[in-house]
């Protein structure tokens, strides 16, 4: 039923692709074609680095429909290094506690399955702690 809506947003959801305003150069996510800063038209694709830090977070013990199998999980507002703030699940926390300001990086993960085990799998961005050796 919801299939078309899912695939049209693949680039932004799989790869964190947003926009850059050609007038004032701010980076925009999610893409909206109009710059929230200067009001100019902004349609240039921009791929975010995926790096950012936790701005705020909360843990959900009762997830909304479709997310029950993932509970409990932590949702955070992540401030990307290019500026925008995105809402996303944190993953791969292991025994790591979450803190405001914690550096995180984007990974593409399974978000949920659309309906039961017969449904389509939905993939998208989440963020995880950077706390293991980073490439030079």
């Amino acid at each position, binding site marked *: 039923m919801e299939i078309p809506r899912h695939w049209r947003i693949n680039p932004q959801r799989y790869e964190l692709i947003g926009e850059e305003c050609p007038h004032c150069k701010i980076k925009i996510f999610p893409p909206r074609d109009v710059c929230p800063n200067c009001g100019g038209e902004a349609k240039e694709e921009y791929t975010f680095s995926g790096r950012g830090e936790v701005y705020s977070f909360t843990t959900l013990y009762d997830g909304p429909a479709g997310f029950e199998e993932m509970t409990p999980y932590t949702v955070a507002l992540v401030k990307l290094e290019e500026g925008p703030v995105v809402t996303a699940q944190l993953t*791969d926390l292991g025994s790591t506690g979450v803190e405001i300001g914690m550096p995180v990086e984007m990974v593409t993960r*399974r978000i949920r399955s659309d309906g039961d085990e017969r449904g389509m799998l939905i*993939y998208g961005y989440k963020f995880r702690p950077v706390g293991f050796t980073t490439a030079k």
Partner: protein
Amino acid sequence: MAAPEKSPLLLIPDRQVGFIGYGAYVPRYRLPGSAVSHIWRFGESGSPVKEKAVAGLDEDVITMSIEAARNALARAGIPARELRAVWVGSESHPYAVKPSGTVVAEALGASSSISAGDWQFACKAGTEAIVAAMGLVGSGMGRYALAIGMDTAQGKPGDALEYTAGSGGAAYIVGPADEALAVIEAAYSFVSDTPDFWRRQEQKYPEHGQRFTGDPAYFKHIQAAAETLLRETRTTPADYRYAVFHQPNPKFPQRAGKALGFNDEQIKDGLLVPVIGNTYAGAALIGLTAVLDIAQPGDRVLVTSFGSGAGSDAFALRVTDAILERRGKARSTADYITRRTEIDYGTYVRFRGKLAMR
């Protein structure tokens, strides 16, 4: 090696090819062998491995392939748009029908003008994809092809395989030899219809013919493939700094290596099964990533996979100078192995979908 004159057995494309990038992925969770023994054997049985890597709740072959491929692209230093193929070899594709390859390709930002799809040949699905990539690049149909071997390996609860069936794998970008960090000097594939291990359509766990897993399956095919490659390339084990074999447990590759004339020094660096388990289609390929992380220019590496059903692909590689500046551009295999959170059997049961929710 003297450029092998065209052996009718070897797989050598018209244009020489190699790996221009590689990337590993291992999920962060570990299930100790002792936890399995505790549940099923009162803790009285030893485990063939210390522990195995377990994918988290939101991970599968698609997500793991995406991360390994991003690491491979970072090392290759090419944009995803230049790939002409995205091929994923696995025996745990999330969908029975719907390719993993298209999701991986789109998540990487690959173009739509590519060949994408999934390969299946038990534990050698990944090396099968590499052989195909050699053909695509070596024929000039494309400059770069991405081939992945990745699994969230299944083992029936309580079965001997449950100690070892792990999650992980690796991605390789095949390209022209003059851009390679490891040139593929030759490959050789050897197969036969052998009923050692299988999983029927719609079955959750594999079956294995206990009698068949050792001599008539693993050892026969690995040895036939590696011996033929050595003979036809006129090389001997002493010419290789490293040898990597499919690794369902620590003993099989050690025994196969010894029988071929390789010593423990040549085998140990690519032997990851004691700490991540048997990652099926990922096993030989992630072993190779650990070797490439430390190999020096000029080193030769012999890699031989094994897939039940059955067959082996063997490769003779020569590491180039490019390894030195490229390997640091993504996380090392050791980085992933060191990132480790131990889990108990209950968490494992939940993570691997063995817990019925309805």
